[in-house]
Every structure is written in structure tokens, then in C-alpha cells.
């Protein structure tokens, strides 16, 4: 099986245990949702998979990818995997793209580095990718700077940069939190489509259960660095086993629970 | 976004104790303390009267005069010690007055905007467009050399730094929702400025002031060096270095007062740095931006 196998992953900074031994799989062709309250270690998990945890962090356990354990791998080999095989998408696209570099530079520099393509070939590939992701006028978009795009377009561009090297794994850290619902819908569709078309293993980090419910195949709920719930999307949302998960779901305005309270208040 | 962070991590009161916990801050504070003690106790700890020309001229360091004597036979060590009584209080006075003046003007400009802002900030630009020392030079030359006039010159050239910082801080701070809330509850603009805005921008301004004490000492001594500051026979460090220009091979005349300046300025910078490091990043940036 391609994709990621995470086994007993631990991460500590100083005396603080941030991840306390978590194990789960991110199989290819599926979206694995990672949920949990703020500070539960969602982002840390994603970063650790890429080997981008803070320098002071101590990592234990295994992250198996393509038959290798990424934990403890030397920086050079990691760098060869990073961006090429395992790509990342961040929460706020306008912060994750350098404001002073053109789109072209930002979505092709690692392509050229990893695949040794010429500038022109890389640009051609970039145009194709942007076009696939339905970014309008891809050719002229390459020459533009991030501030000239809307948030949704930027996130598409960022995703283009992430998939341009044909990675096997995509880690998306709250890719829609900074966006409006209408835009969010588009990005979610895109993720779904990429996952299927490219047989990507997607790790989707989000605290939004609506998003989970829409795209994740499996849901993992993290709390204080431990997995408190894991299961298929339907199971977790309709029949949460953990108290914590339940409270999360109940507080959602989508359920009718608010309505009853409104009547009460009146 | 930034506003969130900035309120979240800001300590409630001025973070002196925490800031001074850093080792460099401690070193800086200790050096300042030593100089302050030296300044206060100067008459008792200085080996000689700083004005008494009672020694052989141009004695090398060592012997009776530990740091040597100057061209008229005064003890350099005593003069260096007494120099602290001039440089330190004057620099503090310059910094405090220009801080008050600059902050008030900058806060008004930042809070009220429009014409007031334009007028105040254009005047500040005007002052900025002059290199400090040249403007101070003209002022000091115009009014005649004296510490008072050096003070006036320094005040004129240093308030804009505070005004800029205060203005930019106030412009951000007045966007804060508690400021708006205060207005909605019926506070007048002045009340709002005084009660809700100023207290929340004052710590970076104070940090800037601490950082500027060093610069003020440097500039004041620069004026004295040019003969436009302290009036002889006052033992002023800058003026003492200037004496050394005429007595080059008697290197001790210029060396020691220069070292005195260096240590004090280093100390204030160390303390200022650790204070700034204790500020949250956005405010620290404002402080950096206002530095000349």
C-alpha cells in the first residue's frame, strides 16, 4: 500500500509532550481527516510528517512512507522527498505565498529543482496545472504576484504548487478556514477530485466538522496529542463515541439543538 | 489578526522585572547603577577636585593620577567621574522631555488625523530631513553654546522620533474595539485618547526612550565635542574628548572619557534591548521603525 503509515508517533518540546504516541494510516486515494480542538497537535502532526517540526522537538515512533521510515531520516533525503513526494498546503494562502515573488517562481522553483526541468518546460507544466485547477488565464497568472488574486484563487494556486511535482501524499492544514463558504465549497470539490484522479493520499487537517462531513473518508479526532476517536466519516459524525466529539457535534448550529434554545430564551 | 496577538500576549503592566531577568539586561542595569552611584557620590569618591589645576600637566596614567592629567593639570579620573553628573541627568532630561513632547504631538496626530496629522507630521518630516547634528549645530550656534541650549537643540531634533512611533501606535491602537466601545459609551475623543489609547501605547514608547538614552548621550557629547554643548571648565565627557584632539599624543585625555561614554551607552542599549525583547513583536517593530 502506498500512502503513509504512522505508528506510535511522539513529539516533545522540552518537557512538554505534544504528540503522545499516535498511530493511523493515510492510504492513497482517500482523504483522511484530522480533527480536534485548538492546540491538540493537528498542525504538529502534519509538520512532523514533512520533517518540519521545530528544531528543538524530539520525535519518536515511525512514519512509514514508501518502505522507509521518515523519522530520523537525514535532512538531505528528507529534502528530496519533501515537495516532490509529500506536499503541503497551508491554512492562509496569502501568508503561505511570498508577496514579492511571482506566481511562476513560487510554483515552479521546486519543480525545476526536483525534476531538473528548464524554465520553459516548468512554465508549460505550471500553465497546465493551473488550468486543470481552473485558475483563470493561467499564462498571465504566472507573471502576477499573490496580491493580485482573491483568496480562493490563491488557494488554488497554492494547491497547484503542491501537486505540480506529482506527489503521492498531500497534507492540507485547514485549507479552507480562511475562505468564505462559497469559495470553500470549490476548494473541497477540488481536493476530492485531485485525490481520486491522482490517487493521492490526503491528510486533511481541520476543526470544521462540516468540512469533514463533506470530504473526509475517515476521521481521526485528536485531543491533547492523543487519538480519542477514529472511524469512518459516517460513524464518527452520526454516532460519536467520545464525549468530546459529541460535544463538538452538538454545539454545531446545523443541528437543531440551537433552535430549542432559542425557543427557551423567548 | 495582529491585534489579537498583540493584546493576548501583552503583559498588563510595564514589564520591568521580567525584562531585566535577561543576563544582558542585568549587565546593562548594573553598569548604569554603577554610573549612577558614581554620579551621586562623585564629590566623595573622586580622588580630586575635577576643576582643580593642582597637578603637573599632561601626566601619563599611573602614579598619583590613575588616569593621568589634562592640559591644565586636572585629574582625569575625577573629571570622568564628575562627568557622569552632567551626561546622565542631561541625557535623561532630553529623553524624557522629547518623549513627552513627541508622544503628545504624535498621539494627537495619530488619533485625530486629517489636518492636525498633516501639520504635525510634516513638521516632523522637516526636522527629520536635517541630519540631527547639523540642525543641533545651527541651533546651538544660534543660541550660543551652553548645556541649556544643547538641551533645546536636542529637544527640537529628537521629538519627531517619538511622534512617529506614538502616531503609528495610536493609529493602530485607536482601531482597537475597546476604543470604539469607549466612544460608543459616550467618552469624548480626548477622554478616549487619554484613557483607552495612551496607556496602551506607552510601554513601547518608554522602551524607545530607554534605547534613546544612549543615542542622546552620544549626540550631546557630539555637540560638546564640537564646542557647542557643555561650557568649560565643566567636566563633560564630550568636551573632554575634544580636549584630546588638541593633545593627540596624550592619548589618555580622550581615551577615558570616550570609554565612559561607550560604557554608559552600551549599558542603556542593553537595557533597552531587553525591554524591547519583552515587548510583543508588533510593538517592538514600531520601536525599531522609529529609531534614527
Amino acid at each position: 500500500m502506498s500512502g503513509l503509515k504512522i505508528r506510535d508517533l511522539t513529539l516533545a518540546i522540552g518537557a512538554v509532550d505534544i504528540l503522545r504516541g499516535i498511530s493511523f494510516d493515510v492510504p492513497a486515494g482517500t482523504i483522511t481527516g484530522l480533527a480536534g480542538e485548538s492546540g491538540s497537535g493537528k498542525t504538529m502532526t502534519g509538520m512532523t510528517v514533512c520533517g518540519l517540526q521545530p528544531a528543538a522537538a524530539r520525535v519518536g515512533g515511525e512514519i512509514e512512507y514508501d518502505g522507509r521510515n521518515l523519522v530520523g531520516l537525514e535532512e538531505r533525503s528528507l529534502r528530496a522527498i519533501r515537495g516532490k513526494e509529500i506536499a503541503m498546503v497551508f491554512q492562509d494562502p496569502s501568508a503561505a505565498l511570498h508577496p514579492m515573488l511571482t506566481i511562476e517562481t513560487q510554483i515552479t522553483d521546486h519543480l525545476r529543482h526536483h525534476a531538473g526541468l528548464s524554465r520553459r518546460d516548468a512554465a508549460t507544466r505550471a500553465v497546465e496545472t493551473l488550468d486543470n485547477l481552473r485558475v483563470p488565464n493561467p499564462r498571465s497568472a504566472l507573471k502576477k504576484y499573490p496580491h493580485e488574486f482573491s483568496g480562493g484563487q490563491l488557494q488554488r494556486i497554492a494547491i497547484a504548487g503542491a501537486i505540480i511535482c506529482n506527489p503521492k501524499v498531500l497534507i492540507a492544514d485547514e485549507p479552507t478556514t480562511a475562505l468564505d463558504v462559497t469559495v470553500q465549497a470549490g476548494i473541497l470539490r477540488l481536493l476530492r477530485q485531485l485525490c481520486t484522479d491522482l490517487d493521492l493520499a490526503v491528510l486533511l487537517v481541520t476543526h470544521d466538522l462540516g468540512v469533514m462531513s463533506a470530504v473526509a473518508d475517515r476521521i481521526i479526532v485528536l485531543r491533547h496529542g492523543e487519538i480519542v476517536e477514529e472511524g469512518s466519516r459516517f460513524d464518527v459524525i452520526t454516532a460519536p463515541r467520545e464525549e468530546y466529539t459529541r460535544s463538538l457535534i452538538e454545539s454545531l448550529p446545523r443541528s437543531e439543538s440551537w433552535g430549542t434554545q432559542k425557543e427557551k430564551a423567548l | 489578526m495582529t491585534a489579537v496577538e498583540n493584546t493576548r500576549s501583552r503583559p498588563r503592566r510595564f514589564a520591568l522585572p521580567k525584562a531585566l531577568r535577561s543576563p544582558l539586561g542585568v549587565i546593562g542595569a548594573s553598569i548604569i547603577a554603577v554610573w549612577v552611584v558614581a554620579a551621586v557620590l562623585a564629590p566623595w569618591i573622586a580622588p580630586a577636585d575635577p576643576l582643580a589645576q593642582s597637578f603637573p600637566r599632561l601626566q601619563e596614567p599611573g602614579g598619583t593620577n590613575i588616569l593621568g592629567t589634562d592640559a591644565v593639570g586636572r585629574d582625569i579620573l575625577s573629571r570622568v567621574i564628575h562627568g557622569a553628573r552632567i551626561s546622565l541627568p542631561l541625557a535623561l532630561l532630553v529623553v524624557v522631555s522629547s518623549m513627552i513632547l513627541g508622544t503628545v504631538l504624535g498621539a494627537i496626530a495619530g488619533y485625530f488625523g486629517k489636518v492636525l496629522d498633516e501639520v504635525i507630521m510634516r513638521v516632523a518630516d522637516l526636522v527629520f530631513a536635517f541630519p540631527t547634528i547639523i540642525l543641533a549645530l545651527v541651533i546651538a550656534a544660534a543660541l550660543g553654546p551652553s548645556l541649556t541650549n544643547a538641551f533645546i537643540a536636542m529637544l527640537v531634533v529628537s521629538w519627531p522620533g517619538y511622534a512617529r512611533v506614538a502616531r503609528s501606535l495610536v493609529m493602530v491602537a485607536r482601531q482597537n474595539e475597546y476604543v470604539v466601545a469607549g466612544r460608543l459609551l459616550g467618552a469624548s475623543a480626548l477622554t478616549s485618547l487619554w484613557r483607552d489609547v495612551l496607556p496602551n501605547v506607552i510601554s513601547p514608547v518608554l522602551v524607545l526612550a530607554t534605547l534613546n538614552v544612549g543615542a542622546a548621550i552620544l549626540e550631546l557629547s557630539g555637540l560638546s565635542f564640537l564646542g557647542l554643548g557643555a561650557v568649560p571648565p565643566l567636566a563633560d565627557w564630550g568636551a573632554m574628548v575634544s580636549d584630546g584632539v588638541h593633545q593627540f599624543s596624550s592619548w589618555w585625555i580622550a581615551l577615558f572619557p570616550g570609554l565612559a561614554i561607550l560604557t554608559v551607552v552600551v549599558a542603556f542599549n542593553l537595557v533597552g534591548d531587553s525591554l524591547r525583547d519583552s515587548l510583543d513583536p508588533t510593538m517592538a517593530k514600531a520601536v525599531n521603525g522609529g529609531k534614527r
Partner: protein
Amino acid sequence: MTDPLLDIRNVTVSYRQPGVGRLTAVNDVTLSLGRGEVLGLVGESGCGKSTLARSICGLEPVESGSISFNGRQVGRLGFGRRPRELVAIQMVFQNPFASLNPRRTIGSQIEDGLRANPRPDTWTVAGLLDEVELDRSSIARYPHEFSGGQRQRIAIARAIAAGPDLLIGDEAIASLDASLQAKIARLMRKLALESDAALLFISHDLAVVRVIADDVAVMNRGVIVEKGPVAQVWNAPQNEYTERLLSAIPAVDGLGRLPATV
């Protein structure tokens, strides 16, 4: 029919944007609100919701049209104090970390509210703290000792202390944890209605508004495109934009249905 409490007629507000020209943030908006009513205002980011709210408070100059409150014209807030009658419009803001002065005790900040109240004896600080379910001992504490949700309650207490006839919540719960949102929203509604005030509840999230407001207005690019009772708008949107907005909300049913895009 008596005059409504808040009467917004053909209001247009625009901003000057350097190098671009003027940007009309609120375009010819007409709305009214009576006592005891809860109106939700929804729309996407940047559509002008906050601008409208700020104009109602006199914080933005109105370019054309008029806003009247209790029959009194709302003018732009200048250097002076706000007119006594207009203090009856109070607002709760989005950012719980910026809505309290970090250097004053929460007691004194709530007192500011009481001082602005024409009937100051309606409330006491302690009573208000009870009302928002905070410990009375909090009076002497400073904002940084409270969590985001607690701060938002303090901000609500301060607004309520002023005895408002109109309470505006501008994304008042948006930055809170999902589990807290319901609580705070409920609190606002309850307090507003108990004091016979109107509530203008602004949010970009239609799902949230749906459960708290009686009526809802949908705003798009500065224009109110649809207004009506919540159930009607939710179940049978008249406007195409509202429809789009609604269909983009992911359903939390665990069925993996992708939200619709246009």
C-alpha cells in the same frame, strides 16, 4: 403604525481607496428594526456588514440616505461626546481580545457602561456579572486573566450595562470555539430581549443566524438582496445569491455530500 426603533433609509457608504477610487461598501440600503426584534444580517466577507453597523453607530459618515434612531438622526461621531440618546445603541465586536482595555479592570469597564445608562440603577456590576455567568470576584481582575469566551461575555455585560435599546453584534461569536458559539449567541439574544431591546446580529454564517434570529437580511456587495423571516429565507430563498450561499454550507450528516458550487 409607530415609527420603528431604527430606521435606515437608502443609506450609501463609501470608502476612498488610494489609487483605486471610491469603493461603495454599502449601497442604497433600507432596513428597519423595532423593539424586541432580532434581525440577522449575513453575507460574505467584505460585503459591507460591518460598515453598515458602524454607520448605525455614527462611526462612518453616511454618504447619502439617512439613519434615524428613536426618531433622532444619527450623525457622525466627532471629537465630542456621543449624544445621550444615541448611547442607547451599543455594539459587541468580533475580536474578544481587542474589545476590552487591557489596562483597566473589568469592573471599571462595566461601570463605564453603567455610567452611560439613563437609568443607572437597573443594573449593578455584580448583577451583570451574574447575568453573564461570571464570578463576582472578577470585578477587580484584568482582561488578560480571562479566556476569549469570558471576555466576550464581559463585553456583552458592558454593552447591556448601558441599557441599550439596540444591541448590535458584529461577528460577536465568529472567533470563538465552536462549542462556545451557541452559548454566547444565546446569551446575547436573551439579554437583549429581556431588556426589551432590538438585536442586530451580524454574521457571515447563515447557519448560525438561522438559529438565533427571527428575521434575516442577506447582503451581497453592499446591497441587501433578500430579507424575510429566517425559516422562509432558509427553506425557500427568493434570491439566487441567497440560494448559492445556502447550498455552499456543508451539511454535517456524515454522508460525504460535497457542497454545491456555481
